[in-house]
Structures are given as structure tokens and as C-alpha cells.
């Protein structure tokens, strides 16, 4: 039987950058095939080539045993390929059925036949178990349902192979589970699913076959059942991930931050934190682990004063700071490295110097009687650029001219050069290349040695086991458990991240 899709040594270059290099991909019909890799490994480029959004420089695309050239998405759709993008493109004031049929309306006598569109949407929705109300307006629906509509759009165009780009990034865990069920339903009906992910758990859970990409090359394609999570990590990163732990002297400082029974809600008014309590001591790094979307972001926002808590207490050096403004909290001694550096970390259009100034523009010696001391600022910025090894032309370079890793160093330089006793660090190495990652880890360790209390939130387990003294695992807004940073049992932490408390045997071993 021919493969549903076969890509033969696809190479795609952008200038001197090679996004895909001789990638082979063979997808069997009736399988869920995952494509996994780090950021920038070339997953999305490969899928865009397959969907006709990009033209490969070399290589061939075979669909159902036929060689195809796909000059545009329309050609890919005609060949039976559909793509559900990460960002949805639905029209809020139109109904579900109108959105599904937009661009290929059913018409009768020149007019759009709403009734036929609704009936057809309803029957498709029933056939594939994608529950929607075809006559409801899209503006009123949740993200999970919007995704179903996007999938319906693909189905109605006759797709037999569906590509999903990071489909769970915007979904709640419950919605993700429903999506996986739907995908299994597709496969049962003889369709093929290709999905891009960097979530190991998801790939292990839902896929039949997995292809690992690294630096634009195909590393391996294997049946998922033959692999363990750590095999996948090793293939993704390209070396044995030793979870190399940073050496450290033991510390036992006094408590700097104390969080007690903290609750809050997210934008959708859903409880995001449900009674979180912990302490962070001076000279200690406390790691927060968990699958993204289990309350870590909200925890960081509440601690930094960007989101109100609904209940609970936060004490810094024994003083309550609950309900204070972000500014007052900074003044009280919290430095914050935000998870989304481009939104809350820097002003991209401002210079490095001005970004270094932010938050202390009214403090001596940065300014005097309301006038900024630019000479001092330039001096300090130059020194920080040197100390943090920020690759930039000078203090006046705009931040947007820097790479992701260097932008992150700008944020770290500003936050670490203050005199805050508590550092709140959220995803310090997200989207940062390996070299810069190492430097950032080194800087965090230096802050620990300087006696700072550090809360490190990360979705990367190896980062936590390299840096943290203790790791708290969050699940669904609660702390599921605590592990010592020097003895991370992947099995155990994986269970906690999935919301399962390990059996008594496991915890006894942990206590021993």
C-alpha cells in the first residue's frame, strides 16, 4: 500500500539558513503521526511545504503514491490535505455553518442556501464526533469549539490527511483529551493525522508513529510504542541529556517569601490557583514544574502584582504584600523576569539603556529631582552589557535588533542588578539557543550564591533539575507534590504533572 504522504529528501533554505535539510517523511494511511522537535527544528517549515505554503528547494512530495507539485494551499487541498493552523481564522458574527462553508458556499439560484449548509455541517459534526451547534454565532464560543470548527472547515473541503500545528497549545487539558479522541476517530475512519508538537506527553499518548526533527534534519522515525520519553528527549536535543546538576553549597537562609493558601481566577473566570502554599528561603532556588497552563503563569502574575488574588496571603520578608500594585511590589523587593519577555519584559522599540532604566527611573542615582542622569545610565548599561555578555552594538541599540537570547539577557541584567531579595523567574530560557541557555543558568546560580531567594518557573524539566534545590509540581492550580532537586525521578514527576499522586511505595522511597 502506498504511503498517504511521502516526502523525499526535502530541503528548504531561507537565505543562508537551512530550515529543512534532506528530510524524509513517510506517513502510513490510517495512522496518527507526530512530528516532534525543539523550537526552530523545522517542523512548521516542513508542514508548510506539505501544505503548499512554501516551495521546497529540493525534494519531492508524493501523495497516495503519486508525485505532486503543490504551488499553493488550493493545490494541497485538492490533493486531500487539510491544515489546522495554530491561530484560528473565524468570523465572529457569522454562524458555525457559515464559517465552515466560507469560500465554498452552497448556493441555490444564486443565493446562499443556509439550510443546506446547516444540515451538512450537522451531519459532518455527527459523523466525526465534533460537537457543534451549526446555527450558533462563532463569537460566543470557546477556543476548543473554535478549533472544532477549523477542523470541520478542513473536513468539508474533503481532506483525507489532516495536519495540526501545535493543536493543544491553546486548549485546556480537558479540551486536549477530547481532541485526541476525535483524532483517533478520524484514524478509525481511515484518515491520516499529522500533528506537530513539542509536548512529549502528548506525543507519547496519542501518536502511533513519531518523527523527530533536529536542526532541520530528520533524526528518526519510529513507532511510538518502542520509545520512552527520555529516548525522545535524547533524539530531540541530540545528546544524552544528563540533567547535569549545577554544583552548589548547601544553604539554609531565612524565609524570604511565604505564600499561603493562594487562590485566583484567570480571564475566563475559571479558578487558576486553588490554594497554593510554599516558602522560598534566601540562597534557595525553588522550581515550579508542570504542564503549561496549570496555573504557573497566574502564580507569577499574582506574585508580581499583575493579577489580583481572590484569597490567600503573600508575605515578603515577613511583610504582607497581597493586593499591592506591581510597582509597590517591586519596591518591596521582588524582581520579575516575565514569561513573555516581548510583552512584559522589554519595550522592543526602546534602546537597551532605556530598558535598563525601566522601573527605577525615579530612583537615585538613576535620576535626580525628576531628571534622568543619562551619563550614569550609559555607564551602567555599558557595564551590564559587558557583565551579561549581551551581544549588541552599544547601549543605544534598540532591543528589537537583538536575538531572543540577548533580549532575555537584557531583562535578566535589569532584574538581577537591582537589590531585590526575591527573584521571580518565569521561563528564563524559552526560545533561547543552547549557548545563551547555559549563560543564563550560570547567572541564576550566581544570584543564588549571592543569597537571593529564587522562584524558578519552567516547563523544561532538565532546566529545573539542573538548577532547583526543591521542585514543586503544579497541576490544575494546586501543588501536587514536592521533589528534591538533586533526585528527580522522571517517572514520579511525570505522574505528578499528570495529576496522579504516586503510590505509597514511591513516596516511601522518596522519603527514605
Amino acid at each position, binding site marked *: 500500500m502506498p504511503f498517504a504522504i511521502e516526502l523525499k529528501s526535502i530541503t528548504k533554505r531561507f537565505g543562508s539558513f537551512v530550515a529543512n535539510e534532506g528530510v524524509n517523511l513517510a506517513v502510513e494511511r490510517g495512522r496518527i503521526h507526530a512530528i516532534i522537535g525543539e523550537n526552530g527544528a523545522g517542523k512548521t517549515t516542513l508542514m508548510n511545504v506539505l501544505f503548499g505554503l512554501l516551495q521546497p528547494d529540493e525534494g519531492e512530495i508524493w501523495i497516495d503514491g503519486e508525485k505532486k507539485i503543490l504551488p499553493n494551499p*488550493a493545490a494541497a487541498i485538492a490533493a486531500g490535505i487539510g491544515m489546522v*493552523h495554530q491561530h484560528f*481564522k*473565524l*468570523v*465572529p*458574527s*457569522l454562524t458555525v455553518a*457559515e464559517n465552515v462553508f*466560507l*469560500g465554498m*458556499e452552497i*448556493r441555490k439560484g*444564486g*443565493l*446562499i442556501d*443556509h439550510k443546506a449548509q446547516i444540515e451538512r455541517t450537522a451531519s459532518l459534526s455527527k459523523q466525526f464526533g465534533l460537537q457543534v451547534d451549526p446555527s450558533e454565532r462563532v463569537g460566543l464560543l470557546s477556543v476548543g469549539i473554535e478549533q472544532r470548527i477549523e477542523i470541520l472547515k478542513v473536513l468539508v473541503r474533503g481532506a483525507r490527511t489532516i495536519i495540526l500545528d501545535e493543536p493543544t497549545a491553546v486548549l485546556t487539558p480537558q479540551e486536549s483529551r477530547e481532541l485526541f479522541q476525535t483524532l483517533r476517530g478520524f484514524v478509525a475512519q481511515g484518515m491520516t493525522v499529522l500533528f506537530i508538537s513539542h509536548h512529549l506527553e502528548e506525543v507519547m499518548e496519542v501518536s502511533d508513529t513519531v518523527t523527530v526533527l533536529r536542526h532541520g534534519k530528520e533524526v528518526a522515525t519510529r513507532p511510538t510504542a518502542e520509545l520512552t520519553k527520555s529516548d525522545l528527549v535524547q533524539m530531540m536535543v541530540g545528546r544524552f541529556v544528563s540533567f547535569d546538576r549545577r554544583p552548589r553549597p548547601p544553604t539554609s537562609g531565612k524565609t524570604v517569601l511565604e505564600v499561603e493558601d493562594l*487562590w485566583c*481566577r484567570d480571564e475566563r*473566570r475559571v479558578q487558576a490557583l486553588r490554594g497554593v502554599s510554599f516558602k522560598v528561603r534566601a540562597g534557595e532556588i525553588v522550581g515550579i514544574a508542570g504542564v503549561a497552563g496549570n496555573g504557573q503563569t497566574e502564580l507569577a502574575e499574582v506574585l508580581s502584582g499583575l493579577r*489580583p488574588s*481572590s*484569597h490567600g496571603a503573600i508575605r515578603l520578608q515577613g511583610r504582607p504584600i497581597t493586593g499591592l500594585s506591581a510597582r509597590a511590589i517591586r519596591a518591596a523587593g521582588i524582581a520579575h523576569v516575565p514569561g513573555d519577555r516581548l510583552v512584559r519584559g522589554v519595550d522592543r522599540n526602546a534602546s537597551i539603556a532605556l530598558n535598563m532604566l525601566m522601573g527605577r527611573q525615579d530612583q537615585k542615582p538613576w535620576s535626580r529631582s525628576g531628571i534622568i542622569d543619562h551619563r550614569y545610565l550609559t555607564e551602567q548599561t555599558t557595564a551590564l552589557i559587558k557583565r551579561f555578555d549581551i551581544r549588541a552594538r552599544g547601549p543605544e541599540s534598540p532591543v528589537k535588533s537583538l536575538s531572543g537570547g540577548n533580549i532575555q539577557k537584557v531583562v535578566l541584567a535589569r532584574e538581577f542588578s537591582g537589590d531585590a531579595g526575591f527573584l521571580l523567574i518565569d521561563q528564563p530560557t524559552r526560545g533561547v539557543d543552547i549557548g545563551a541557555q547555559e549563560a543564563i543558568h550560570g547567572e541564576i546560580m550566581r544570584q543564588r550564591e549571592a543569597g537571593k531567594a529564587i522562584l524558578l518557573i519552567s516547563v523544561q524539566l532538565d532546566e529545573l533539575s539542573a538548577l532547583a534545590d526543591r521542585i514543586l509540581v503544579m497541576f490544575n492550580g494546586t501543588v501536587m507534590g514536592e521533589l528534591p532537586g538533586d533526585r528527580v525521578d522522571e517517572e514520579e514527576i511525570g505522574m505528578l504533572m499528570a495529576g496522579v499522586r504516586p503510590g505509597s511505595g514511591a513516596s516511601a522511597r522518596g522519603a527514605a
Partner: protein
Amino acid sequence: MEVLERLFNVALVVATLRTTAPILLVALGGSFTTKAGIFNIGLEGQMLVGAFFAVIGTIFTGSPWIGVLCGVAAALVLAFVFALLVVTFKANEVVVGLALNILAGGMTVSLLKAIFGTRGSIFGHGLVGLPVLRLPNARDLGWFGQMISGYTPLVYVAFILVPVLILFYNRSRLGLYIRVVGEKPEAAEALGISIARIRYVSSLLCGLLAGLAGAHLSLGYTTMFTENMSSGRGFMAVAILIFSNGDPLKILLGCLLFGFSDALSLRLQTFGISSYLVLAVPYLVALIALFALSYRARPRIIQETLASMGRALSVKPNAATDAEKAVTRG
């Protein structure tokens, strides 16, 4: 009582429909651009140019129908320039709209001077208006017949266009695409719908109706051209469009309100009420109407207020559970 009867009668309804028609035509034109996501403040200018060239066309050919075509053609040219600047060259739509309005005002005045050697207004010169349509058998319908018969053709066109446009937006592909382009351009783009083309088409459809509105003003509503004779109707239409979001039915209601207040003020003048006061009536009604219409935005404002209050008050539910906990502990 007698005064009220003299004021509110079939004649007032007729006058209302007459005064509503020009503003309805131009507002329905603006509905295309509004729905396509263009804020078109140039309606006034397109209408004025339409009125002027309708008169010119009629005087030079002797046929008011050709006059109407000339007016529409002139408005289309202006609408095309608008689309060219706004869609292709991505200029600011308010600036372009205002500039074209000023151009229309200046151009009509100077052409008037150049061709007829006068300022102010022109009539005569062999100018004929559009014929009045008397519906057959209307006389048998009594007062209702009086109400619906005896208008110039473009009045009927204006009112018939309302259901036509409702059908257009809900059931035709072009209407649907115009809405999508206005509401979610990236969705249109993803489906291969050309945003620029849809916006051009909307601008030209808008020019078509604005031109008809102008022609109606100079050949139907009156039979003359006066300097700046659109007298703010284009701007009134813009106001109605903002509050109706371009929905034809809401546009009709808004225009009827303006038409009614206009007609009322004309009638009040015959009662010897100070003309200054009377002339203020349409604007007063407009103000009240806009206030009332903007009151519609209330749910959103209330929603936001409630949301922010909810955030501040969200302590409560948990505080309550906390209290419960305390009780159970006790």
C-alpha cells in the same frame, strides 16, 4: 387638539418619506463601505458631485435620466479616487474623505461660476426634473394611496433598496464576503478572498448610491442645484452608519427619524414659531437620537463594569468558603 391634527396627518408622513429618501440612499451606499471596514466620511462630497453633474447632464441633454447617469458617473469617479487612495495607497480614510469633500464643494462652485457665470444656485436653463410616479389605482386606497403614490422614482428606489440590501448581506456571496472583509480580514485572506478587490467593489457600490442620492436631491427632491446643497446629509448618514453598524434595517430607522424631524421642522414653520428654533429641530432630534442610540452600547459597558467589579469582589465567594471552613472547624 386641532393644532395636533393639523400637524400630524398624512401630509406629514408624505413629507417624512420625501425628506428621508435622499439621506436613506446615501446612507445605504455608506453601508457597503461600513460593512467592508472602511470609515467613509466622503459621502457628502460624492452626493454633492452627483447632484451637480445630474443637473449639468440634464441641461446639456434635456433628459433627466441621462442627468441621473451623469451624476452617478461623477460620484463613481470620486469613489474610485477614494478607493485608490485608501485601499491601494493605504492613506488615512478620514483625511482622504475630508479632502474629497472639500474638493467636491470647491469644484462644484467653481464649475458653476465657469459654466453659468453665477454663484449660488441654478435653475431654469431648460432644467427638467424626474417625473412624478403616480401608482395606478392608488386613488382607490384612500389615505394609504396618498401615502405611497406621487413620488419621484428615486424615492421608491431608496425604500426598495432596504430589503434588497438585507437579502444581499445575508444571502449573496458578495454580501457575505464584504462582511467578512470588514470583520475579519485575515479570515478572508486565508480563504483566498482579495481584500483589496472587495473594498474597491464596496467603495464603488457606495459611490453608485451616493450619486443616485445626489441626483435625487437636484432632480427629484428639487429641480435645481444650489451651492453645498447636500447640506450635511452625508455627515448625517455617517452618523447613522456608526450607530447602525451598516445594517440596512437600522439605517432605515435612523433615516426615518432624521426625515421625520426635518419634515416636522418644515411644518412647524407654518405655525409661526421662530424659524431659528424650528431650524434647530432636526439637529436637536439628531442629538437626542444619537444619545438614545449610543445607549445601546450599554450592555457592553455594563458588562465591563460588572467584570471589573467582579474582579474586585471576587474575594467574596472564597471568603465565604473560608468562613464556612472556620465554622466547620469550630
